[in-house]
């Protein structure tokens, strides 16, 4: 991992430089191909929406579209109290994201700026954490939170999601902070800011795309987490959407239409969030990925 400093000016230069005029045909082929790729990636989700709208008696029909659309599938599952689960999911995702940013920003900033004993050890720890997923450790996680009497607690899920996703945030932010020229910071200190003040007033705004990237990663991971929530949460009103939706896979039947209706509801907020900040993610990864 070398330090390739992708400065903002270089990027804007890339955009500003006039390209040679591409032949018309090439643009058409390029756009057409890209639309096809985009469509391809949407198809499974289109099928998800269509199935969510199938009436029970057309569920297993061999056709692309049902003859009737059953919008009642959505109202049915909403009336089982899905709103509560939606807000639990939000609590978990927002809480984990906030906690990750709170602990990852100082750690990433310090390791990017300073050399100290144990830095390599810390970064190695972060790297190894990145490699673990809770699936493999579910029994240990249960045992641990039992010790702290935190079974059936939303806080436990916030901690677990934050813990397992913090590594990525430290990593990408470390890269981002490292790419900010230290002269900017020193200028701020000369202007009378304290170190901490400089971090808040100068560095964090400059690192915003990186922070947004870390934010979206943690949010999505926490939003979609399933196994830990399934194991730790027993009360129906504390289950996040992922666990609640899985109940439609029952002992004797799978309620495909309701399962997918729940999934559509669970996916929409993330897609909206993502669409809002799509541009930031690309630029956020720019610095991070070239580290």
């Amino acid at each position, binding site marked *: *991992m*070398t*330090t*390739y400093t992708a400065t903002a000016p270089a*990027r804007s*230069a890339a*955009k500003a*430089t006039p*390209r040679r005029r591409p032949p018309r045909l090439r643009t058409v082929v390029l*756009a057409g*191909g890209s639309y096809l*790729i*985009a469509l391809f*990636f*949407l198809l499974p*989700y289109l*099928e998800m929406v269509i199935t969510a709208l199938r009436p029970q008696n057309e569920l297993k029909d*061999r056709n*692309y579209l049902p003859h009737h659309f059953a919008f009642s599938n959505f109202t049915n599952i909403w009336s089982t109290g899905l709103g509560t689960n939606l807000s639990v999911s939000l609590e978990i995702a927002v809480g984990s994201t906030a906690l990750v940013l709170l*602990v*990852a920003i100082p*750690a990433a*900033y*310090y390791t990017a700026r*300073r050399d100290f004993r144990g830095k390599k050890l810390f*970064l190695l720890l*972060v790297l*190894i*954490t990145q*490699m*673990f997923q809770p*699936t*493999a*450790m579910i*029994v*240990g*996680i249960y045992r*641990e939170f039992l010790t702290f009497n935190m079974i059936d607690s939303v806080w436990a899920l916030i901690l677990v999601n934050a*813990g397992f996703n913090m590594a990525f945030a430290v990593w990408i932010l470390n890269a981002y902070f*490292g790419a900010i020229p*230290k002269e900017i*910071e020193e200028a701020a200190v000369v202007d009378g800011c*304290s170190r*901490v003040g400089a971090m808040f007033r100068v560095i964090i705004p400059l690192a915003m795309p990186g922070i947004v990237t870390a934010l979206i990663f943690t949010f*999505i991971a926490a939003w979609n987490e*399933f196994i830990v929530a399934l194991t730790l949460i027993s009360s129906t009103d504390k289950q996040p959407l992922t666990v609640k939706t899985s109940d439609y896979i029952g002992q004797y039947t799978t309620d495909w239409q309701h399962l*997918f209706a729940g*999934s559509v509801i669970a*996916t929409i907020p993330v*897609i909206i*969030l*993502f*669409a809002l900040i*799509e541009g930031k993610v690309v630029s*956020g*990864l*720019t610095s991070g*990925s*070239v*580290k």
Partner: protein
Amino acid sequence: MTQTTHADVLGPASDPGGDRRPPRRAGRLARALAPLPWIGPATGLILFVVIWPVIAMFQTSREHYSSLGVLMGSAGWNNFTRLFDEADLGGVVMRTVIWVVAVVALTMLISLGVAQMFNKEFPGRRFARWALIAPWAASVVMTSIVFRWMLDPNNGVVYVLLKQLGLVKNFNTTDTGWLGNPTDAFWCAVFVAVFVSIPFTTYALLAGLQAVPADVYEAAKLDGASPLRTYWAVTLPLLRPALLVAALINVMNVFNSFPIIWELSGGGPGSQSATTTIFMYQLKQSSIGEAAAMSVVNFGFIIVIVLLFLRASKWNSAED
């Protein structure tokens, strides 16, 4: 991890922890403790949430549990000997290697192409990029379940299409039994894994591409290099750090991936389409101790991958 460059450049004056008191009076202890406020919370969270369960996992691998989870006493190394005696283990490990290599290689290759396309200006580019995030935003569990539904032997929409094209003769026959046949099910899982890995990888590479200064291309063009040659000699080397990071994240995600194979085939028939992560889960249902032993072995694999990665990144920085 070779970030000493910053520290070398930064003089003692820019010590962010020590600015409030005169540097001279800071003793050894203060110096050693200075990083704590900054990295302490992060370290604490890692130790609490990740390392603690890892230790519990090691303990469990030496204990004997009944299938309902009742502790029956110490097992010594029995869980490990029984694990290594499993007739399926060899195949499972082989399949895991193929799984990781195939998924990551295909993901990287395809993402390079897609990133290249999406980096060019064309009308509607924003929409196309936006569509690509769907598999990233949706949970992998749900995406896997949708694919399983689309490959339902009785009414899967994929087979509906293939039947119209004349490639499938009839439903509920071996023609539509991809997920029931271990080889086909495995490759379907590879497809889904590539499908869900492409968005992140493409975005990471897209970011890498946008960071390549335009004057580099101008220079290559002035030298009369062909587009293919430019890509090979200019773009790819500049993308190498991005490629390395994307590859590492993919390797870890794919190695640890549980929902895809689990939802598509449950690792079956038997364990004939299972990877080590799936096999661990299958074992968990009859023997928690043996499953923990499998987790410990997986842990070993992860350490090996980390070491390989560290070596690769050193090689990378040495060349620069």
